[in-house]
C-alpha cells in the first residue's frame, strides 16, 4: 500500500495539531512534513481540515465472550472499536467463565486472532472473581496477561488483595481496582441523592467508592504494587489517587470514563436505563471536578468501560436492568463534541490520555504519526457529524445514551499497518 494523506493537521500528545502531509508505504510512515511532494504511484487522499492522529487505545472494555455472545462477541467489539477510531483494547475478565486461568486466556486470545486490531485481555485476581482464592497468576502471565483485576467487583478481603499484590508484583503484573465497598454500595443501581429518593431506589453513595479506593491505594503503597484505579466517579476518589501518587510516591494511577465527564444522575429522568452504569452517574459538580482532573493530570487515561447489553435486558425495570453502556463506537466523537469542539481541552490531551498513556500502561509501543513508525493512525473530521443509529454502530448492542443522536465530528479513516480498516 502506498498512501498519501494530503493537507491534514497532524496531532500528537505534546503539541497542537500542525499542518503536515503523511506518506505511508508498506505499513510504515515514510515521511511527515508540510507540503511534501506527492509521491509517484501513491493513492492521494485529501484530508485538508481534518485531524490525522494515532489510533486510540481503550484499556477497559467488556467483550462478552465467552458466555455472553448474545450481547457482544470479541469480533463485534473489535469492530465497534475500529468504528470509533480505536486500534487496540484490553478486555475485562468478567466473562462466563471468568478469565481467571491460562486456559481461558488462551481461549480468548485465540478468538482475538480473528480481529483486525490487537485485542488484549486482563485476568482475574481471584478465582471466578469470587474473592476467595488467588487465580493462577503465573499461567496467565505466560499466556500474555499483564493487568490483574476483578473488575465488576472489589476484592472484598483486604488480606487476600494484599497477598495477591505481594505475590503478583513479582511477576511484573500490575493491578487494577474496581473500588466499591459492597455493604455501602447496596443494590448498585444509581447514585445516592435527590434522584434516588425521587425514583424510590436505594442509591449507591460516593462514599462506597471513596472508602474502597482508600483501602486499595494504601495496600498498593504498602506492598509496592502498581495499581490502576478504574472508572473513577468521585472527586474525593480522584484526589486520593493524586495524593498517594504525588505525596507518597505510590505507583498508582486512575482512569475516567467519558460518561462520568458528561452525564449526571438527573439524566436518568424517568428510569432511563441508558444512564444506568456502575459506578453510577453522579452530580454536575462531579462532572466539573473530574474534567478538571483530566486536564491537570490527575487521571492517567480515558477508558470507556464499554459494556454492551441487549435491548431486552435494558428494557427491564431500572433496578433489574444490567449496569453499563456501550461506548466504543461513540467515545471519541462524544469527547470531541462535548469538550474539544467547545475548547475545554485540545487534541494533544486526547492523544496523550486515550492513545499514548494507555499503551504505555500496557507496555506497548506508543503509536505516533512520525517518520519511520509503523502505521497506526486515524483521520478525524471536526466538521463532519455522526448519527449513532443502530445501523451505524458496530457493537452488537446499542445501549447508549447517544442512540439516534447526532454529534459533531466523524471518524473518517482508520489505517493500521498495511491495511485501511475503515474509510467513510
Amino acid at each position, binding site marked *: 500500500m502506498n498512501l498519501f494523506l494530503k493537507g491534514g493537521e497532524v496531532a500528537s500528545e505534546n503539541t497542537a495539531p500542525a499542518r503536515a502531509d503523511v506518506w505511508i508505504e508498506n505499513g510504515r510512515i515514510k515521511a511527515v512534513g508540510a507540503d511534501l511532494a506527492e509521491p509517484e504511484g501513491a493513492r492521494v487522499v485529501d484530508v485538508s481540515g481534518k485531524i490525522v492522529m494515532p489510533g486510540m487505545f481503550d484499556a477497559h472494555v467488556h467483550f462478552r465472550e465467552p458466555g455472553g455472545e448474545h450481547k457482544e462477541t470479541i469480533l463485534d467489539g473489535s469492530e465497534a472499536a475500529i468504528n470509533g477510531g480505536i486500534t487496540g483494547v484490553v478486555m475485562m475478565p468478567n466473562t462466563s467463565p471468568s478469565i481467571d486461568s491460562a486456559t481461558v486466556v488462551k481461549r480468548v486470545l485465540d478468538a482475538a486472532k480473528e480481529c483486525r486490531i490487537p485485542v488484549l485481555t486482563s485476568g482475574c485476581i481471584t478465582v471466578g472473581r469470587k474473592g476467595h482464592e488467588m487465580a493462577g497468576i503465573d499461567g496467565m502471565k505466560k499466556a500474555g496477561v499483564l493487568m490483574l483485576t476483578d473488575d465488576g467487583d472489589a476484592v472484598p478481603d483486604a488480606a487476600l488483595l494484599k497477598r495477591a499484590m505481594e505475590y503478583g508484583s513479582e511477576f511484573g503484573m500490575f493491578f487494577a481496582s474496581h473500588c466499591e465497598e459492597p455493604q455501602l454500595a447496596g443494590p448498585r443501581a444509581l447514585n445516592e441523592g435527590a434522584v434516588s*429518593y425521587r425514583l424510590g*431506589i436505594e442509591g449507591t453513595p460516593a462514599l462506597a467508592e471513596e472508602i474502597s479506593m482508600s483501602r486499595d491505594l494504601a495496600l498498593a503503597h504498602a506492598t509496592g504494587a502498581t495499581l490502576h484505579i478504574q472508572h473513577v466517579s468521585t472527586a474525593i476518589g480522584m484526589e486520593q489517587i493524586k495524593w498517594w501518587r504525588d505525596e507518597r510516591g505510590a505507583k498508582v494511577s486512575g482512569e475516567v470514563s467519558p460518561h462520568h465527564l458528561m452525564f449526571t444522575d438527573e439524566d436518568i429522568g*424517568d428510569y432511563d436505563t441508558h444512564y444506568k452504569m456502575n459506578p453510577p452517574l453522579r452530580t454536575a459538580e462531579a462532572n466539573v471536578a473530574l474534567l478538571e482532573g483530566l486536564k491537570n493530570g490527575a487521571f492517567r487515561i480515558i477508558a470507556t468501560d464499554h459494556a454492551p447489553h441487549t435491548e431486552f435486558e435494558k428494557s427491564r425495570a431500572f433496578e433489574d436492568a444490567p449496569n453499563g453502556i456501550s461506548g466504543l463506537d461513540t467515545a471519541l466523537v462524544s469527547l470531541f463534541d462535548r469538550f474539544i469542539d467547545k475548547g475545554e481541552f485540545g487534541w494533544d490531551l486526547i492523544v496523550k490520555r486515550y492513545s499514548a498513556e494507555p499503551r504505555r500502561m500496557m507496555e506497548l509501543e506508543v503509536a505516533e504519526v512520525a517518520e519511520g513508525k509503523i502505521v497506526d493512525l486515524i483521520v478525524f473530521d471536526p466538521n463532519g457529524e455522526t448519527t449513532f443509529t443502530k445501523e451505524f454502530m458496530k457493537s452488537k448492542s446499542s445501549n447508549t445514551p447517544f442512540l439516534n443522536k447526532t454529534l459533531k465530528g466523524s471518524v473518517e479513516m482508520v489505517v493500521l499497518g498495511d491495511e485501511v480498516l475503515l474509510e467513510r
Partner: protein
Amino acid sequence: MARKDFLDIVSLDREEIIQLLDQAEPFKDLFTRSVKKVPALKGKTVLMLFYEPSTRTLSSFEVAAKRLSADVTTFDVPSSSVTKGESVRDTIDTLQAMRADYIVVRHGLSGQPAAIARQTGASVINAGDGAHAHPTQALLDAFTLREKFPEMEGKRVLITGDILHSRVARSTSTILRKLGVKVAFLGPGSLVPKTASPEIPRFTNYDQAIREFGPDAVYLLRIQKERMAAPFFPSDREYHNLYGITDERLRQLAGQGTYIMHPGPINRGVELCDAVLDYDRCLISQQVENGIAARMSVLYGLKPQTS
C-alpha cells in the same frame, strides 16, 4: 384530555387532582345506597397484577372495579409462569392477548408500572411500586383530609416513620403539597433522608416536631418488619418510645384536636398504641372507605387505548 395511565402524583397538576377528588364524591355517596353499583365500566376488563402480597389495596381495587360494573380478574402471580422465570415484559404480552382494558399493577421494583404502561395500550394503574409511588393511596389520603378540612390550603401534616423506604410518604407528601398543605417529615435520622426535599422540614425529635410544626394531622407510616431486622434503629420498643403514639402523646394530640392517619396495615405497639384505634379523630377506617371511592374515580377517569 383524559390520561391513559395513572402512575404517579408528580406528573399530575393541581386541577387534575381536584377533578379526581371531586369525581370521587358521588361515588362515595353511592356506598350508602342499597345498590352500590353504576354501569360506567360495563363490558370492560380490569386485571389485577400484584407481584407483591397485598390484601387491602387488592380488595379495594376489586371492590372499586366491581362497583363500576367491570369484569375483574386477578392474575395469580405466585403460582403463575412468573415464578417459572418469565420476564414481566413477556407476561404483559400474554395479558395483552387477553385484551384487558385496565391493568392494576403492584411491583417491588420502582418504575415497573411505568415500563408496563409503555408496552401496552391498556390503562395501567400503579398500585404501589418499590419505594417510588403509591398514587391511589395519596389520592384517598387527600380525599380524607379534605373531608375534614374543605379549605386545605395552609393545613399541616406531619408524616412520621420510615420516610426513606416509603412510597406512601413520597406520593402523599407530593399530593398534599400540590394542594397547598404544608408537610413535614419526622423519624429516626437513618430513615429520614436529608436529600428528600429542601422544602420539607425534617424532624428527628417528636416533641420538637409537634411544638415547632404544630400539625393538624399526624400521618403514621407502618414500620416494616424487615426494617426492624436491618439495623436502621435499635428496636421496635425504642422506636415506639421515641416516635410511636403512646397513651400520653395521644392525650396531648386529643387536647390539640389533631387527626391521626395511617395507610395500614398497622403495627400495634410500634407506631401506635391500642387506644389510637378508639380515638375519635383517628381516620384510619375513613381512609379505607374513601380508598374505594378514590380508586373508582381513577378508573372512571382513565382512557384505555384498546379497541
